[in-house]
């Protein structure tokens, strides 16, 4: 892609007016970068090639984040990976995503350039094509810099059925790595805290494909907002079984645990953007874990607990000292405590 002089230029209302300025912007910032045959047709909807008799999986998510750049990622990589991961945890191979931008008038053109370049790189890495999109510019103050909506389509192999209905007593709970980094990375950047914590923002399809190939996966979720605790609570409620997890098996990086300790936050409730929680058949757990560890996103994978008959609908944590406590959903935001 040839980069025009984006420096010092700003987004104007006319960039969203549908005229020549908009065409040029869309071409430079999106089409040239996301380039693929489907997008190149520039039709009102993307016409996708047929994919046999497999099941389609369709999702959408909007991304609003402050700050838009943070250690380990940015709103662009988040918008691609987030939607890719929503498909992946359904067992769907992500194929196509859309890209709708709502941009605040006055945004620096080079910021937009960085974001769409990040989307380009992230989608290539995740092996998805951005095939359709939309751009709107709103008056200064009507949006905070940029909002992105991505919708995604993936295909599910006929024999892949992931559902909480398949969960049984004794099933194991696996996570692919250390928790809590994304939320803290964003917060540190926003509040100007000095930490080395980087967001775990990543596409999960690669590792999930590896996991699925081992068989025995019953259900998966990505613990984004609300963190691991919230996802486990939902699984316990939906499946009707209890969940027992062990604090000592939870992978948490030292930086994350000391930083959350200082702020009075609980890593179990902090958002992740590159983590998957899988409920797997007991006899398959070790082979799935072994496969996960071969993937860079699964090096710290760990069995963190199991499905139980007792404590139906509840998540019980065995604390580091062997005490027990019930884990509940996150209500509102975690707020640092006064002391």
């Amino acid at each position: 892609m040839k980069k025009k002089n984006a420096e010092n230029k700003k987004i104007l209302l006319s960039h969203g007016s549908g005229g020549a300025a908009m065409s040029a912007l869309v071409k430079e910032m999106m089409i040239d970068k996301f380039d693929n045959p489907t997008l190149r047709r520039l039709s009102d909807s993307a016409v996708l090639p047929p994919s046999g008799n497999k099941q389609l999986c369709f999702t959408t998510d909007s991304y609003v984040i402050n700050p838009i750049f943070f250690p380990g990622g940015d709103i662009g990589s988040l918008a691609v990976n987030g939607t890719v991961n929503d498909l992946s945890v359904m067992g769907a191979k992500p194929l196509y995503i859309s890209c709708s931008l709502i941009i605040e008038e006055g945004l620096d053109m080079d910021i937009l350039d960085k974001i769409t370049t990040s989307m380009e790189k992230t989608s290539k890495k995740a092996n998805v094509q951005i095939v359709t999109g939309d751009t709107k510019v709103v008056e200064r103050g009507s949006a905070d810099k940029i909002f992105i909506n991505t919708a995604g389509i993936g295909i599910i192999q006929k024999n892949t059925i992931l559902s909480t209905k398949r969960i049984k007593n004794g099933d194991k709970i696996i996570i692919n790595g250390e928790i809590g980094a994304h939320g803290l990375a964003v917060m540190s950047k926003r509040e100007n805290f000095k930490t080395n914590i980087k967001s775990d923002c990543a596409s999960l399809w690669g590792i999930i494909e590896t996991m699925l190939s081992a068989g025995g996966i019953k259900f998966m979720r990505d613990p984004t907002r609300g963190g691991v605790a919230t996802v486990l609570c939902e699984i316990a409620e939906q499946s009707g079984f209890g969940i027992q997890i062990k604090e000592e098996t939870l992978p948490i990086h030292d930086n994350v645990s000391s930083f959350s300790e200082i702020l009075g936050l609980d890593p179990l409730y902090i958002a992740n953007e590159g983590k998957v929680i899988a409920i797997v058949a007991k006899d398959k757990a070790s082979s799935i874990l072994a496969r996960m560890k071969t993937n860079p996103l699964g090096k710290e994978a760990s069995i963190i607990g199991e499905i139980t008959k007792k404590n139906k609908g509840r998540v019980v944590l065995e604390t580091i000292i062997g005490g027990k406590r019930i884990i509940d959903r996150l209500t509102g935001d975690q707020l640092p405590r006064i002391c």
Partner: protein
Amino acid sequence: MKYITEYRNKDLSHKIANRINNLLKGYKGKISLMEVCGTHTYSIFHSGIMSLLSKEIEHLSGPGCPVCVTPNKYIDTAIAYSHLPDVIITTFGDMIKVPGSTSSLEKEKASGSNVKIIYSPLESLKIAKKNPDKKIVFLGVGFETTAPLVASTILSAKDENIKNFFVLSGHKLIPPAMTALLERKEIKIDGFMCPGHVSAIIGEKPYLSIVKKYGIPSVIIGFEPIDLLEGIEMLIKQITVKKTASLENQYKRVVRKEGNEKALSLINKVFDVKDSPWRGLGLLSKSGLSIKKAYAKFDAETNIVCEIEKTKEHPECLCGEVLCGTKRPYDCTLFAKTCSPENPVGPCMVSSEGTCAAYYKFKK
């Protein structure tokens, strides 16, 4: 983190828990231990230590959560300030959800009030410098632990000649609350778990007269599972074996006998001790901090005048009784029904340090 994990050792925890349970063999009746520190409330639930201990030990959460002891009138005042077009409220996060008589800062923020969540009172000064045409009102809520920080912020504001920074001082002192609880004969307290952080500032002295006058076993305790268990063991020993009350310090690695002189001198420099209203306990003599005359130009109450709504309390809310340990969250008809962390009726449901929130979250 290695330093911390040593205080989370599983084998040692079980060893101490067993020793405590053995001490109670043959002891008749329940033993009620009260902590007066939100971080104790949180750590006790978070670590699950009570599940290791004999059911004869009862854990009472006293008035140790700063948000929870703040009366409605204070919140109403902050809300009234937030309605003034030239005011920016700065506050620690958990204050914004606390319901006042008819609203909360969270609701006012959504309808246009300028309320900013900050992590250190010093951030208020940056905001003040950036917004010279606004009045920045910091909600100074907290105990002896927070007060030195706020004092030092006021001193910095003076040094930097910042004229648009004000503090609404709702700071409170812990020892007077402990005394007030002991004066209420209907509350059975067999021992105090004295707050580690507050003690790091005030030292051992303020507790000595309480222990002597009321014969109440008291131990200054830290926040890790081993700290808590060791502190409880010291209390149970006083109650069941020694049968005399004394003040002991389990948290010697942090709490010095004389406290933190520098922090204390900051408090004394900027604040006067005054009578102060506590939710649930009423007006307690010499239990709060107001800004000294010499720093009156930073005192929100003397400088910003506005109309404050008439204070109303929710008739069914038992936060006051819960704070005193005379009622449990389960006793409240609102608990986990009308009142939840999503929609708190009383302040004890707001902060993660609040007793009701802790019961809701960890036990239900």
